[in-house]
Protein backbone atom coordinates (compact mmCIF):
# COMPACT_ATOMS: atom_id res chain seq x y z
CA UNK A 1 0.00 0.00 0.00
CA UNK A 2 2.79 2.41 0.91
CA UNK A 3 4.47 2.06 -2.47
CA UNK A 4 1.21 2.62 -4.31
CA UNK A 5 0.55 5.86 -2.48
CA UNK A 6 4.06 7.23 -2.22
CA UNK A 7 5.72 6.38 -5.51
CA UNK A 8 3.44 8.29 -7.95
CA UNK A 9 3.55 11.71 -6.22
CA UNK A 10 7.23 11.37 -5.33
CA UNK A 11 8.03 10.36 -8.91
CA UNK A 12 5.96 13.24 -10.27
CA UNK A 13 7.83 15.65 -8.03
CA UNK A 14 11.20 14.21 -9.09
CA UNK A 15 10.36 14.40 -12.79
CA UNK A 16 9.26 18.04 -12.50
CA UNK A 17 12.25 18.98 -10.35
CA UNK A 18 14.83 17.19 -12.49
CA UNK A 19 13.41 18.65 -15.68
CA UNK A 20 13.57 22.14 -14.22
CA UNK A 21 17.18 21.60 -13.20
CA UNK A 22 18.05 20.16 -16.61
CA UNK A 23 16.30 23.09 -18.25
CA UNK A 24 18.44 25.53 -16.32
CA UNK A 25 21.46 23.84 -17.95
CA UNK A 26 19.95 24.32 -21.40
CA UNK A 27 18.17 21.00 -21.87
CA UNK A 28 15.08 21.40 -24.06
CA UNK A 29 14.04 17.79 -24.57
CA UNK A 30 10.32 18.39 -24.07
CA UNK A 31 10.22 22.02 -25.17
CA UNK A 32 7.56 23.09 -27.63
CA UNK A 33 8.72 24.84 -30.79
CA UNK A 34 9.85 28.36 -29.91
CA UNK A 35 9.18 30.82 -32.74
CA UNK A 36 12.42 32.09 -34.17
CA UNK A 37 10.97 34.57 -36.66
CA UNK A 38 8.15 37.09 -36.54
CA UNK A 39 6.30 35.00 -39.12
CA UNK A 40 6.57 31.87 -36.97
CA UNK A 41 5.37 33.81 -33.92
CA UNK A 42 2.49 35.22 -35.96
CA UNK A 43 1.56 31.78 -37.29
CA UNK A 44 1.45 30.45 -33.73
CA UNK A 45 -0.43 33.45 -32.37
CA UNK A 46 2.38 34.42 -29.99
CA UNK A 47 1.88 38.17 -29.94
CA UNK A 48 4.51 39.02 -27.33
CA UNK A 49 7.13 36.92 -29.09
CA UNK A 50 6.34 38.65 -32.39
CA UNK A 51 6.79 42.08 -30.80
CA UNK A 52 9.95 40.89 -29.05
CA UNK A 53 11.48 39.78 -32.35
CA UNK A 54 10.48 43.03 -34.06
CA UNK A 55 12.11 44.96 -31.20
CA UNK A 56 15.22 42.84 -31.71
CA UNK A 57 15.42 44.08 -35.29
CA UNK A 58 13.50 41.60 -37.42
CA UNK A 59 11.60 43.19 -40.26
CA UNK A 60 7.81 42.80 -39.83
CA UNK A 61 7.33 43.17 -43.59
CA UNK A 62 9.84 40.59 -44.73
CA UNK A 63 8.82 37.15 -45.93
CA UNK A 64 10.26 34.62 -43.48
CA UNK A 65 10.54 30.88 -43.22
CA UNK A 66 8.00 29.01 -41.15
CA UNK A 67 9.34 25.65 -40.07
CA UNK A 68 7.41 22.43 -40.69
CA UNK A 69 5.13 21.51 -37.80
CA UNK A 70 4.07 25.07 -37.02
CA UNK A 71 1.21 25.68 -39.46
CA UNK A 72 1.07 22.11 -40.68
CA UNK A 73 3.61 19.51 -41.74
CA UNK A 74 4.96 21.72 -44.55
CA UNK A 75 7.49 24.50 -44.63
CA UNK A 76 6.27 27.91 -45.87
CA UNK A 77 7.67 31.33 -46.53
CA UNK A 78 5.21 34.06 -45.52
CA UNK A 79 5.20 37.63 -44.32
CA UNK A 80 4.20 38.00 -40.63
CA UNK A 81 0.80 39.46 -41.47
CA UNK A 82 0.08 36.66 -43.91
CA UNK A 83 1.18 34.12 -41.31
CA UNK A 84 -1.22 35.61 -38.76
CA UNK A 85 -4.03 35.40 -41.32
CA UNK A 86 -3.21 31.80 -42.22
CA UNK A 87 -2.89 30.93 -38.51
CA UNK A 88 -6.31 32.57 -37.98
CA UNK A 89 -5.25 35.09 -35.33
CA UNK A 90 -7.37 38.15 -36.01
CA UNK A 91 -6.16 40.24 -33.03
CA UNK A 92 -2.58 39.60 -34.09
CA UNK A 93 -3.34 40.75 -37.64
CA UNK A 94 -4.43 44.09 -36.17
CA UNK A 95 -1.53 44.21 -33.73
CA UNK A 96 0.98 43.59 -36.51
CA UNK A 97 -0.59 46.36 -38.57
CA UNK A 98 -0.19 48.71 -35.61
CA UNK A 99 3.39 47.51 -35.15
CA UNK A 100 4.68 48.40 -38.58
CA UNK A 101 3.56 45.48 -40.74
CA UNK A 102 2.17 47.87 -43.31
CA UNK A 103 4.03 46.89 -46.46
CA UNK A 104 2.56 43.70 -47.78
CA UNK A 105 1.18 42.27 -50.98
CA UNK A 106 -2.41 43.42 -50.45
CA UNK A 107 -3.90 41.14 -53.11
CA UNK A 108 -2.24 38.08 -51.59
CA UNK A 109 -3.19 39.03 -48.03
CA UNK A 110 -6.81 39.52 -49.09
CA UNK A 111 -6.80 36.23 -50.95
CA UNK A 112 -5.47 34.44 -47.85
CA UNK A 113 -8.00 36.21 -45.66
CA UNK A 114 -10.85 35.11 -47.94
CA UNK A 115 -9.62 31.55 -47.69
CA UNK A 116 -8.69 31.39 -44.03
CA UNK A 117 -9.87 34.38 -42.00
CA UNK A 118 -12.74 36.42 -43.49
CA UNK A 119 -12.98 38.46 -40.24
CA UNK A 120 -9.71 40.12 -41.27
CA UNK A 121 -11.06 41.44 -44.57
CA UNK A 122 -12.32 44.78 -43.15
CA UNK A 123 -8.87 45.30 -41.60
CA UNK A 124 -7.40 44.87 -45.09
CA UNK A 125 -9.95 47.31 -46.53
CA UNK A 126 -11.58 44.55 -48.53
CA UNK A 127 -15.26 43.63 -48.79
CA UNK A 128 -16.17 40.41 -47.05
CA UNK A 129 -18.15 38.97 -49.96
CA UNK A 130 -17.14 35.66 -51.55
CA UNK A 131 -15.40 34.55 -48.35
CA UNK A 132 -15.23 30.87 -47.41
CA UNK A 133 -17.74 29.76 -44.83
CA UNK A 134 -15.23 27.42 -43.30
CA UNK A 135 -11.47 27.92 -43.45
CA UNK A 136 -9.71 26.29 -46.39
CA UNK A 137 -6.84 23.85 -45.76
CA UNK A 138 -3.60 25.77 -45.17
CA UNK A 139 -1.61 24.24 -48.03
CA UNK A 140 -4.50 24.73 -50.46
CA UNK A 141 -5.02 28.34 -49.39
CA UNK A 142 -1.36 29.22 -49.83
CA UNK A 143 -1.23 27.47 -53.17
CA UNK A 144 -4.33 29.30 -54.35
CA UNK A 145 -2.98 32.71 -53.28
CA UNK A 146 0.54 32.20 -54.66
Amino acid at each position, binding site marked *: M*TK*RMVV*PPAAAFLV*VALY*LVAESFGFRGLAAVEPGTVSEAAAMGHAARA*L*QLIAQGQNPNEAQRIAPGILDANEYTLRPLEAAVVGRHIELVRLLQRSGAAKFDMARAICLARARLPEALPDLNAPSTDASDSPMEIAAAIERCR
Partner: protein
Amino acid sequence: MHNNLGLRYHRLAYVYASAVAVIMGTLLLGIPVQLSDSFTEFTAMHGRGLWEVISAEFYNGAYFRPFRRALIKIVYDLSGGHYYIAFRGFQALELLLLLVLVVRMLRVRTAAALAAVPLGLAVLVGMHTFAGAVREGLPINHFLTILICCAGAVNLAQAKRTWLIDVAAVALLVAAMMTIESGLLVWAIFAAAYIVGYRGVSRGALIALTACVAIYFAGRFVIIGGAAPGLNERSAGFGFAVLNPDELVRRFGSNPLPFYAYNIVSAVACVLFAEPRGGVWMFVREVATGRPEPWQIVNVITSVLTTAVMLRFAASRIPKWKARDFDDADRFVIIFLVVLPLNALFAAAYEKDVIMSPAGLFYAVAAYFAFRALLSGSTVAIAPAVALIIAIGWSIRFVGMQDNLRARALSVQDEWAYYDDWAREQPTDVHLTAEEEVIRQHLYDDAVLRAPRVPQLSLGGIERLFDFTQ
Protein backbone atom coordinates in the same frame (compact mmCIF):
# COMPACT_ATOMS: atom_id res chain seq x y z
CA MET B 1 16.08 7.97 20.02
CA HIS B 2 12.41 7.98 19.04
CA ASN B 3 12.30 11.77 19.41
CA ASN B 4 15.37 12.20 17.22
CA LEU B 5 13.85 10.05 14.53
CA GLY B 6 10.58 11.98 14.75
CA LEU B 7 12.46 15.24 14.38
CA ARG B 8 14.25 13.87 11.36
CA TYR B 9 10.97 12.93 9.69
CA HIS B 10 9.62 16.38 10.42
CA ARG B 11 12.69 18.04 8.91
CA LEU B 12 12.45 15.86 5.83
CA ALA B 13 8.85 16.97 5.43
CA TYR B 14 10.01 20.60 5.58
CA VAL B 15 12.70 19.87 2.99
CA TYR B 16 10.14 18.31 0.66
CA ALA B 17 7.67 21.18 1.08
CA SER B 18 10.43 23.72 0.51
CA ALA B 19 11.53 21.91 -2.64
CA VAL B 20 7.96 22.00 -3.97
CA ALA B 21 7.81 25.71 -3.18
CA VAL B 22 11.13 26.31 -4.94
CA ILE B 23 9.93 24.52 -8.08
CA MET B 24 6.71 26.49 -8.20
CA GLY B 25 8.47 29.69 -7.18
CA THR B 26 10.89 29.29 -10.08
CA LEU B 27 7.96 29.03 -12.48
CA LEU B 28 6.18 31.93 -10.77
CA LEU B 29 9.22 34.12 -11.39
CA GLY B 30 8.73 33.51 -15.09
CA ILE B 31 5.28 35.12 -15.03
CA PRO B 32 5.35 38.90 -15.49
CA VAL B 33 3.07 41.24 -13.54
CA GLN B 34 -0.28 40.74 -15.22
CA LEU B 35 -2.34 43.42 -16.91
CA SER B 36 -5.90 42.48 -15.93
CA ASP B 37 -6.83 43.10 -12.27
CA SER B 38 -3.30 44.29 -11.65
CA PHE B 39 -2.13 47.24 -13.73
CA THR B 40 -4.83 49.54 -12.34
CA GLU B 41 -3.60 48.65 -8.85
CA PHE B 42 -0.25 50.16 -9.74
CA THR B 43 -1.74 53.37 -11.01
CA ALA B 44 -3.93 53.51 -7.86
CA MET B 45 -0.79 53.32 -5.70
CA HIS B 46 1.16 55.98 -7.47
CA GLY B 47 1.54 59.32 -5.71
CA ARG B 48 -0.54 58.30 -2.69
CA GLY B 49 0.48 57.68 0.89
CA LEU B 50 -0.16 54.42 2.72
CA TRP B 51 -2.92 55.87 4.90
CA GLU B 52 -4.56 57.47 1.90
CA VAL B 53 -4.63 54.09 0.16
CA ILE B 54 -6.07 52.36 3.24
CA SER B 55 -8.69 54.99 4.06
CA ALA B 56 -9.97 55.08 0.46
CA GLU B 57 -10.95 51.42 0.88
CA PHE B 58 -13.23 52.14 3.81
CA TYR B 59 -15.95 53.48 1.56
CA ASN B 60 -15.64 51.06 -1.35
CA GLY B 61 -19.24 49.86 -1.43
CA ALA B 62 -19.60 46.09 -1.60
CA TYR B 63 -15.92 45.45 -0.89
CA PHE B 64 -13.97 46.19 2.27
CA ARG B 65 -10.34 45.24 1.71
CA PRO B 66 -8.05 47.95 3.10
CA PHE B 67 -5.18 45.61 4.05
CA ARG B 68 -5.09 44.11 0.58
CA ARG B 69 -4.33 47.51 -0.91
CA ALA B 70 -1.97 48.31 2.00
CA LEU B 71 0.10 45.23 1.29
CA ILE B 72 0.28 46.10 -2.39
CA LYS B 73 1.32 49.64 -1.49
CA ILE B 74 4.07 48.41 0.84
CA VAL B 75 5.55 46.04 -1.75
CA TYR B 76 5.13 48.73 -4.42
CA ASP B 77 7.11 51.23 -2.36
CA LEU B 78 9.77 48.68 -1.42
CA SER B 79 10.17 47.52 -5.01
CA GLY B 80 12.13 50.61 -5.99
CA GLY B 81 10.64 50.36 -9.47
CA HIS B 82 11.56 46.67 -9.90
CA TYR B 83 7.91 45.65 -9.91
CA TYR B 84 8.25 42.33 -11.66
CA ILE B 85 10.81 40.77 -9.35
CA ALA B 86 9.31 42.40 -6.24
CA PHE B 87 5.74 41.22 -6.76
CA ARG B 88 6.47 37.79 -8.18
CA GLY B 89 9.24 37.30 -5.61
CA PHE B 90 6.75 38.20 -2.88
CA GLN B 91 4.27 35.66 -4.24
CA ALA B 92 6.97 32.97 -4.34
CA LEU B 93 7.86 33.74 -0.71
CA GLU B 94 4.19 33.60 0.26
CA LEU B 95 3.94 30.18 -1.35
CA LEU B 96 7.01 28.96 0.56
CA LEU B 97 5.57 30.31 3.81
CA LEU B 98 2.24 28.61 3.17
CA LEU B 99 3.78 25.20 2.50
CA VAL B 100 6.04 25.47 5.55
CA LEU B 101 3.06 26.41 7.75
CA VAL B 102 1.05 23.52 6.36
CA VAL B 103 3.82 21.00 7.04
CA ARG B 104 4.26 22.48 10.51
CA MET B 105 0.62 21.83 11.34
CA LEU B 106 0.80 18.23 10.09
CA ARG B 107 3.25 17.43 12.93
CA VAL B 108 5.05 14.70 11.00
CA ARG B 109 6.67 12.37 13.53
CA THR B 110 6.55 8.88 12.00
CA ALA B 111 7.62 7.17 8.80
CA ALA B 112 3.98 6.68 7.76
CA ALA B 113 3.30 10.38 8.39
CA LEU B 114 6.27 11.32 6.24
CA ALA B 115 5.28 8.87 3.52
CA ALA B 116 1.90 10.59 3.15
CA VAL B 117 3.45 14.06 2.75
CA PRO B 118 4.11 13.93 -1.04
CA LEU B 119 0.52 12.89 -1.71
CA GLY B 120 -0.88 15.42 0.77
CA LEU B 121 1.07 18.25 -0.85
CA ALA B 122 0.12 17.00 -4.31
CA VAL B 123 -3.53 17.37 -3.25
CA LEU B 124 -2.91 20.85 -1.88
CA VAL B 125 -1.02 22.09 -4.93
CA GLY B 126 -2.96 20.15 -7.53
CA MET B 127 -6.35 21.15 -6.16
CA HIS B 128 -8.35 23.19 -8.68
CA THR B 129 -9.29 25.71 -5.98
CA PHE B 130 -5.59 26.38 -5.39
CA ALA B 131 -4.74 27.25 -8.99
CA GLY B 132 -6.19 30.76 -8.80
CA ALA B 133 -4.08 31.47 -5.73
CA VAL B 134 -0.85 31.02 -7.68
CA ARG B 135 -1.66 31.68 -11.33
CA GLU B 136 -3.04 35.14 -10.69
CA GLY B 137 -0.92 38.13 -9.64
CA LEU B 138 -3.51 40.78 -8.76
CA PRO B 139 -0.55 41.95 -8.17
CA ILE B 140 -0.49 40.36 -4.70
CA ASN B 141 -2.77 37.38 -4.61
CA HIS B 142 -5.05 38.03 -1.64
CA PHE B 143 -6.39 34.48 -1.80
CA LEU B 144 -2.87 33.19 -1.17
CA THR B 145 -2.53 35.68 1.68
CA ILE B 146 -5.74 34.33 3.23
CA LEU B 147 -4.48 30.75 2.89
CA ILE B 148 -1.41 31.78 4.87
CA CYS B 149 -3.67 33.36 7.51
CA CYS B 150 -5.72 30.12 7.71
CA ALA B 151 -2.62 27.95 8.10
CA GLY B 152 -1.20 30.50 10.53
CA ALA B 153 -4.37 30.32 12.61
CA VAL B 154 -4.04 26.55 12.98
CA ASN B 155 -0.37 26.90 13.89
CA LEU B 156 -1.26 29.42 16.61
CA ALA B 157 -4.04 27.17 17.90
CA GLN B 158 -1.58 24.27 18.11
CA ALA B 159 1.08 26.33 19.92
CA LYS B 160 1.80 26.41 23.63
CA ARG B 161 -0.52 28.98 25.16
CA THR B 162 1.02 32.34 26.05
CA TRP B 163 -0.38 35.87 25.97
CA LEU B 164 1.74 36.52 22.89
CA ILE B 165 -0.13 33.79 21.01
CA ASP B 166 -3.41 35.45 21.99
CA VAL B 167 -2.21 38.82 20.73
CA ALA B 168 -0.94 37.24 17.51
CA ALA B 169 -4.31 35.50 17.01
CA VAL B 170 -6.20 38.79 17.27
CA ALA B 171 -3.73 40.53 14.95
CA LEU B 172 -4.01 37.69 12.44
CA LEU B 173 -7.80 37.79 12.40
CA VAL B 174 -7.90 41.57 12.01
CA ALA B 175 -5.37 41.44 9.17
CA ALA B 176 -7.23 38.57 7.45
CA MET B 177 -10.72 40.05 7.61
CA MET B 178 -9.48 43.41 6.42
CA THR B 179 -7.70 41.76 3.48
CA ILE B 180 -10.76 40.12 1.95
CA GLU B 181 -14.12 39.03 3.26
CA SER B 182 -13.20 35.33 3.42
CA GLY B 183 -10.60 36.32 6.02
CA LEU B 184 -13.50 35.98 8.48
CA LEU B 185 -12.94 32.23 8.15
CA VAL B 186 -9.90 32.68 10.38
CA TRP B 187 -12.32 33.24 13.27
CA ALA B 188 -14.15 30.01 12.41
CA ILE B 189 -10.83 28.17 12.32
CA PHE B 190 -9.84 29.47 15.77
CA ALA B 191 -13.26 28.54 17.16
CA ALA B 192 -13.28 25.07 15.58
CA ALA B 193 -9.71 24.43 16.70
CA TYR B 194 -10.64 25.37 20.26
CA ILE B 195 -13.67 23.09 20.24
CA VAL B 196 -11.65 20.08 19.05
CA GLY B 197 -9.01 20.63 21.68
CA TYR B 198 -6.29 22.88 20.28
CA ARG B 199 -5.84 25.29 23.15
CA GLY B 200 -2.94 27.50 22.07
CA VAL B 201 -5.41 30.36 21.89
CA SER B 202 -7.10 31.02 25.23
CA ARG B 203 -10.82 31.24 25.87
CA GLY B 204 -10.42 34.94 26.66
CA ALA B 205 -8.73 35.48 23.30
CA LEU B 206 -11.54 33.60 21.60
CA ILE B 207 -14.02 36.02 23.16
CA ALA B 208 -11.86 38.92 21.93
CA LEU B 209 -11.78 37.35 18.45
CA THR B 210 -15.56 37.06 18.48
CA ALA B 211 -15.82 40.71 19.51
CA CYS B 212 -13.57 41.63 16.55
CA VAL B 213 -15.95 39.87 14.18
CA ALA B 214 -18.93 41.66 15.73
CA ILE B 215 -17.13 45.00 15.39
CA TYR B 216 -16.32 44.14 11.77
CA PHE B 217 -19.97 43.56 10.91
CA ALA B 218 -21.15 46.60 12.85
CA GLY B 219 -18.44 48.77 11.31
CA ARG B 220 -18.90 47.53 7.81
CA PHE B 221 -22.64 47.35 7.47
CA VAL B 222 -23.90 49.86 10.08
CA ILE B 223 -21.26 52.59 10.37
CA ILE B 224 -19.68 52.51 6.89
CA GLY B 225 -22.84 51.31 5.22
CA GLY B 226 -21.39 48.73 2.83
CA ALA B 227 -23.61 46.37 0.88
CA ALA B 228 -23.35 42.85 -0.45
CA PRO B 229 -22.38 42.54 -4.16
CA GLY B 230 -25.35 42.76 -6.52
CA LEU B 231 -26.39 40.39 -9.31
CA ASN B 232 -25.55 43.00 -11.93
CA GLU B 233 -21.82 43.10 -11.19
CA ARG B 234 -20.52 40.10 -13.08
CA SER B 235 -21.37 37.01 -15.05
CA ALA B 236 -21.88 33.80 -13.08
CA GLY B 237 -22.23 30.12 -13.80
CA PHE B 238 -25.65 28.52 -13.46
CA GLY B 239 -26.56 25.03 -14.56
CA PHE B 240 -24.73 24.23 -17.78
CA ALA B 241 -23.87 27.78 -18.83
CA VAL B 242 -22.54 31.15 -17.72
CA LEU B 243 -25.22 33.84 -17.39
CA ASN B 244 -24.37 37.48 -18.02
CA PRO B 245 -25.41 40.16 -15.47
CA ASP B 246 -28.54 41.14 -17.43
CA GLU B 247 -29.68 37.54 -17.57
CA LEU B 248 -28.98 37.06 -13.87
CA VAL B 249 -31.04 40.11 -12.99
CA ARG B 250 -33.85 38.96 -15.29
CA ARG B 251 -33.98 35.48 -13.78
CA PHE B 252 -33.20 36.18 -10.13
CA GLY B 253 -33.60 39.93 -9.68
CA SER B 254 -36.91 39.64 -7.83
CA ASN B 255 -35.77 36.76 -5.64
CA PRO B 256 -32.04 36.03 -5.60
CA LEU B 257 -32.22 33.46 -2.79
CA PRO B 258 -32.45 30.38 -5.08
CA PHE B 259 -29.41 31.64 -6.96
CA TYR B 260 -27.48 32.16 -3.73
CA ALA B 261 -28.49 28.70 -2.49
CA TYR B 262 -27.40 27.22 -5.83
CA ASN B 263 -24.00 28.89 -5.51
CA ILE B 264 -23.48 27.65 -1.96
CA VAL B 265 -24.32 24.06 -2.88
CA SER B 266 -22.16 24.34 -6.01
CA ALA B 267 -19.23 25.66 -3.99
CA VAL B 268 -19.40 22.72 -1.58
CA ALA B 269 -19.67 20.23 -4.44
CA CYS B 270 -16.82 21.94 -6.27
CA VAL B 271 -14.44 21.19 -3.41
CA LEU B 272 -15.64 17.64 -2.80
CA PHE B 273 -16.09 16.45 -6.38
CA ALA B 274 -14.27 18.97 -8.65
CA GLU B 275 -17.67 19.61 -10.21
CA PRO B 276 -19.32 22.02 -10.90
CA ARG B 277 -16.59 24.48 -11.84
CA GLY B 278 -17.36 28.16 -11.47
CA GLY B 279 -21.00 27.17 -10.98
CA VAL B 280 -21.14 25.36 -14.33
CA TRP B 281 -21.64 21.59 -14.46
CA MET B 282 -19.06 21.20 -17.21
CA PHE B 283 -18.23 17.55 -16.69
CA VAL B 284 -21.89 16.51 -16.56
CA ARG B 285 -22.56 18.55 -19.70
CA GLU B 286 -19.64 16.96 -21.54
CA VAL B 287 -20.58 13.46 -20.40
CA ALA B 288 -24.13 14.07 -21.63
CA THR B 289 -22.78 14.97 -25.05
CA GLY B 290 -20.29 12.09 -24.90
CA ARG B 291 -17.18 14.25 -25.07
CA PRO B 292 -15.67 14.70 -21.59
CA GLU B 293 -12.10 15.98 -21.70
CA PRO B 294 -9.43 13.69 -20.23
CA TRP B 295 -8.53 16.31 -17.59
CA GLN B 296 -12.15 16.45 -16.47
CA ILE B 297 -12.20 12.70 -15.99
CA VAL B 298 -8.93 12.83 -14.01
CA ASN B 299 -10.19 15.69 -11.82
CA VAL B 300 -13.60 14.26 -11.04
CA ILE B 301 -12.50 10.67 -10.44
CA THR B 302 -9.60 11.75 -8.22
CA SER B 303 -11.71 14.13 -6.16
CA VAL B 304 -14.65 11.74 -5.80
CA LEU B 305 -12.40 8.90 -4.65
CA THR B 306 -10.45 11.15 -2.26
CA THR B 307 -13.70 12.45 -0.78
CA ALA B 308 -14.95 8.87 -0.41
CA VAL B 309 -11.77 7.85 1.43
CA MET B 310 -12.09 10.88 3.67
CA LEU B 311 -15.76 10.28 4.42
CA ARG B 312 -15.11 6.62 5.19
CA PHE B 313 -12.36 7.68 7.54
CA ALA B 314 -14.67 10.24 9.20
CA ALA B 315 -17.45 7.66 9.59
CA SER B 316 -15.08 5.26 11.30
CA ARG B 317 -14.22 7.95 13.85
CA ILE B 318 -17.69 9.07 14.82
CA PRO B 319 -17.80 6.95 18.01
CA LYS B 320 -14.55 8.62 19.10
CA TRP B 321 -15.95 12.04 18.27
CA LYS B 322 -19.02 11.36 20.36
CA ALA B 323 -16.73 10.61 23.28
CA ARG B 324 -14.84 13.83 22.50
CA ASP B 325 -11.66 11.84 22.03
CA PHE B 326 -9.77 13.61 19.24
CA ASP B 327 -6.34 13.15 17.72
CA ASP B 328 -4.81 15.37 15.02
CA ALA B 329 -6.54 13.46 12.22
CA ASP B 330 -9.97 13.90 13.83
CA ARG B 331 -9.33 17.55 14.51
CA PHE B 332 -8.41 18.38 10.94
CA VAL B 333 -11.31 16.47 9.45
CA ILE B 334 -13.68 18.34 11.79
CA ILE B 335 -12.05 21.70 11.03
CA PHE B 336 -12.50 20.94 7.32
CA LEU B 337 -16.15 20.07 7.85
CA VAL B 338 -16.63 23.39 9.66
CA VAL B 339 -14.72 25.49 7.13
CA LEU B 340 -16.34 23.95 4.03
CA PRO B 341 -19.93 25.24 4.45
CA LEU B 342 -18.82 28.55 5.95
CA ASN B 343 -16.42 29.13 3.07
CA ALA B 344 -19.24 28.34 0.65
CA LEU B 345 -21.25 31.25 2.09
CA PHE B 346 -18.64 33.61 0.61
CA ALA B 347 -19.38 32.14 -2.80
CA ALA B 348 -23.11 32.89 -2.49
CA ALA B 349 -23.04 35.94 -4.78
CA TYR B 350 -21.10 34.10 -7.46
CA GLU B 351 -19.19 30.84 -7.42
CA LYS B 352 -15.56 31.01 -8.39
CA ASP B 353 -13.20 28.14 -7.64
CA VAL B 354 -10.53 30.24 -5.95
CA ILE B 355 -13.03 31.61 -3.40
CA MET B 356 -13.12 28.06 -2.06
CA SER B 357 -9.34 27.88 -1.68
CA PRO B 358 -9.45 27.92 2.17
CA ALA B 359 -11.80 24.92 2.13
CA GLY B 360 -9.48 23.39 -0.49
CA LEU B 361 -6.54 23.83 1.86
CA PHE B 362 -8.30 21.97 4.68
CA TYR B 363 -9.57 19.39 2.22
CA ALA B 364 -5.95 18.62 1.37
CA VAL B 365 -4.95 18.42 5.03
CA ALA B 366 -7.92 16.23 5.93
CA ALA B 367 -7.12 14.03 2.92
CA TYR B 368 -3.52 13.78 4.14
CA PHE B 369 -4.69 12.35 7.46
CA ALA B 370 -7.10 9.98 5.73
CA PHE B 371 -4.22 8.77 3.51
CA ARG B 372 -2.08 8.37 6.59
CA ALA B 373 -4.71 6.11 8.10
CA LEU B 374 -4.92 4.18 4.84
CA LEU B 375 -1.15 3.70 4.89
CA SER B 376 -1.39 2.25 8.38
CA GLY B 377 -3.52 -0.57 6.97
CA SER B 378 -6.99 -1.05 5.56
CA THR B 379 -9.14 -4.15 5.58
CA VAL B 380 -11.11 -3.12 2.51
CA ALA B 381 -10.27 -5.33 -0.48
CA ILE B 382 -10.33 -2.56 -3.08
CA ALA B 383 -8.26 -0.17 -0.94
CA PRO B 384 -4.94 -0.80 -2.78
CA ALA B 385 -6.54 -0.13 -6.17
CA VAL B 386 -8.29 3.01 -4.91
CA ALA B 387 -5.06 4.23 -3.32
CA LEU B 388 -3.19 3.77 -6.58
CA ILE B 389 -5.82 5.61 -8.63
CA ILE B 390 -5.88 8.48 -6.13
CA ALA B 391 -2.09 8.72 -6.05
CA ILE B 392 -1.74 8.69 -9.84
CA GLY B 393 -4.61 11.17 -10.25
CA TRP B 394 -3.21 13.72 -7.83
CA SER B 395 0.27 13.27 -9.30
CA ILE B 396 -1.13 14.18 -12.71
CA ARG B 397 -2.84 17.22 -11.21
CA PHE B 398 0.39 18.22 -9.46
CA VAL B 399 2.39 18.05 -12.70
CA GLY B 400 -0.47 19.78 -14.53
CA MET B 401 -0.22 22.72 -12.16
CA GLN B 402 3.45 23.18 -13.09
CA ASP B 403 2.59 23.12 -16.79
CA ASN B 404 -0.26 25.49 -16.05
CA LEU B 405 2.21 28.02 -14.62
CA ARG B 406 4.33 27.77 -17.76
CA ALA B 407 1.28 28.45 -19.91
CA ARG B 408 0.33 31.35 -17.67
CA ALA B 409 3.69 33.04 -18.33
CA LEU B 410 2.96 33.00 -22.03
CA SER B 411 -0.62 34.24 -21.67
CA VAL B 412 0.41 37.18 -19.46
CA GLN B 413 3.07 38.21 -21.98
CA ASP B 414 0.49 38.10 -24.75
CA GLU B 415 -2.01 39.97 -22.58
CA TRP B 416 0.44 42.90 -22.38
CA ALA B 417 1.13 42.73 -26.10
CA TYR B 418 -2.55 43.57 -26.59
CA TYR B 419 -2.54 46.46 -24.13
CA ASP B 420 -4.26 48.83 -26.60
CA ASP B 421 -7.14 46.40 -27.06
CA TRP B 422 -7.44 45.95 -23.29
CA ALA B 423 -7.55 49.73 -22.76
CA ARG B 424 -10.24 50.08 -25.41
CA GLU B 425 -12.39 47.41 -23.76
CA GLN B 426 -12.40 49.01 -20.31
CA PRO B 427 -15.78 50.31 -19.15
CA THR B 428 -14.28 53.75 -18.57
CA ASP B 429 -11.67 55.48 -20.72
CA VAL B 430 -8.11 54.82 -19.65
CA HIS B 431 -6.31 58.14 -19.38
CA LEU B 432 -2.84 57.85 -17.94
CA THR B 433 -0.82 60.70 -16.49
CA ALA B 434 2.77 61.01 -17.63
CA GLU B 435 3.97 59.19 -14.51
CA GLU B 436 1.41 56.43 -14.93
CA GLU B 437 2.48 56.08 -18.54
CA VAL B 438 6.05 55.52 -17.33
CA ILE B 439 4.79 52.72 -15.07
CA ARG B 440 2.78 51.24 -17.93
CA GLN B 441 5.78 51.30 -20.25
CA HIS B 442 7.94 49.72 -17.56
CA LEU B 443 5.48 46.88 -16.96
CA TYR B 444 4.95 46.45 -20.70
CA ASP B 445 8.68 46.22 -21.34
CA ASP B 446 9.04 43.79 -18.45
CA ALA B 447 6.34 41.55 -19.86
CA VAL B 448 6.92 41.77 -23.58
CA LEU B 449 10.56 42.65 -24.08
CA ARG B 450 12.52 41.78 -20.96
CA ALA B 451 10.74 38.82 -19.36
CA PRO B 452 12.51 35.52 -19.85
CA ARG B 453 10.66 33.23 -22.22
CA VAL B 454 9.50 30.33 -20.07
CA PRO B 455 9.82 27.29 -22.33
CA GLN B 456 6.46 25.75 -23.10
CA LEU B 457 6.34 21.98 -23.08
CA SER B 458 5.17 19.67 -25.82
CA LEU B 459 4.14 16.42 -24.17
CA GLY B 460 2.60 14.68 -27.13
CA GLY B 461 -1.02 14.83 -26.01
CA ILE B 462 -0.37 14.24 -22.31
CA GLU B 463 -1.35 17.89 -21.81
CA ARG B 464 -4.95 16.85 -22.32
CA LEU B 465 -4.79 15.35 -18.85
CA PHE B 466 -3.97 18.77 -17.38
CA ASP B 467 -6.57 21.31 -16.33
CA PHE B 468 -5.79 24.71 -17.85
CA THR B 469 -9.21 26.21 -17.21
CA GLN B 470 -8.41 28.23 -14.09
